[in-house]
């Protein structure tokens, strides 16, 4: 019996020793996966939004003064009123934010409605953009 108890204790200790966190620093996780926000122009921030909302088209143009104007058609896929928040990040040629980011603004979509949301950059540094939609909070 004593032998069994010792064995069990030894096994538990060995396993617990493996639990200790190794010393840092660590490499970041998922650096090559789930990076849609870096590459796509329209992203939905979670699955519930993905279920309820879609984009039926995005138009963009450069204004005469060099600023970028985006018009995103955002559609409610459900037969009920929903409330989401939208934001746009303006990016340079390398897909890095220019620091010009619109605040999250509330968008109320009626049953099966499509709303056009316009975003305009504040300067002529923007070349690309990402429109983001999330649940209202």
């Amino acid at each position, binding site marked *: *019996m004593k032998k*069994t*108890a010792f064995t*069990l*204790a030894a096994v*538990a200790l060995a*396993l*617990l020793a493996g*639990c200790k*966190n190794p010393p840092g620093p660590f490499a970041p996780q998922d650096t090559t996966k789930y990076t849609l926000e870096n590459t796509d122009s329209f992203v939905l921030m979670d699955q519930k939004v993905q279920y309820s909302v879609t984009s039926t088209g995005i138009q963009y143009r450069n*204004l*005469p*003064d060099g*600023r970028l104007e985006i018009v995103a058609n955002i559609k409610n896929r459900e037969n009920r009123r929903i409330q989401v928040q939208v934001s746009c990040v303006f990016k340079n040629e390398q897909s890095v934010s220019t*620091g*010009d980011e*619109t*605040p*999250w*603004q*509330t968008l109320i979509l009626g049953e099966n409605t499509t709303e056009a949301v316009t975003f*305009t*950059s*504040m*300067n*002529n*540094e923007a070349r690309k953009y990402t429109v983001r939609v999330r649940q*209202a*909070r």
Partner: protein
Amino acid sequence: MNKSLNRIVILSLGAASLFFTGCANQGVQNPSGVPVTEMKADERGFVAGTGIESQDLVAVTDKMARAILGIPEIANAKAVPRIALDPVINDTRFAINKDIFNDRIRTKLNEHANGKVRFLARERMKTLEHERELKQSGAVTASSDPSVVEFKGADYFLTGKLSGMSGRTSQGVSDYVLYTFQLIDARTSDIVWEGSSEIKKQGLEDAAYR
């Protein structure tokens, strides 16, 4: 003997599973101690009323700043237009610091508009005049002739108005606020641009402003 062996096995397994539960990686722990949560200014947060809140301020001022840059008087101006701020009129029932609207529009434009507009520091005129007097009297050095007036006049005035409509029933409180901002030509008094935003909120709680 078998009974006590069973008890040891069960106890060991229980202890091990408890340890392993504690071992699960929980990720970053937020600061604890003081029950205060830091929020982003454009978030509604958990302390919300039906009145004017930071997320409204951020959304409205961002919209106005972007709209100002698009009007022909600014976008096609040959010389950089000078803008002075005129205090916002608050016609709502909410006792808020209304100057924060103009301040945020000015800040956004100064930060991101790459010098497309210039704002005049009219709030600091006393300090600026005092400095000029010191230069004129020779008490301090001057890099140019201090007797020449170099304070710039305004090409445009930026101002705004907050108008409110409120209601209360046994179901709760309802507040509608219309935010309007204007850019006025200082020479002709023409309103060269006007932008508006409207927000309606209904809820049980009425916010108290401090």
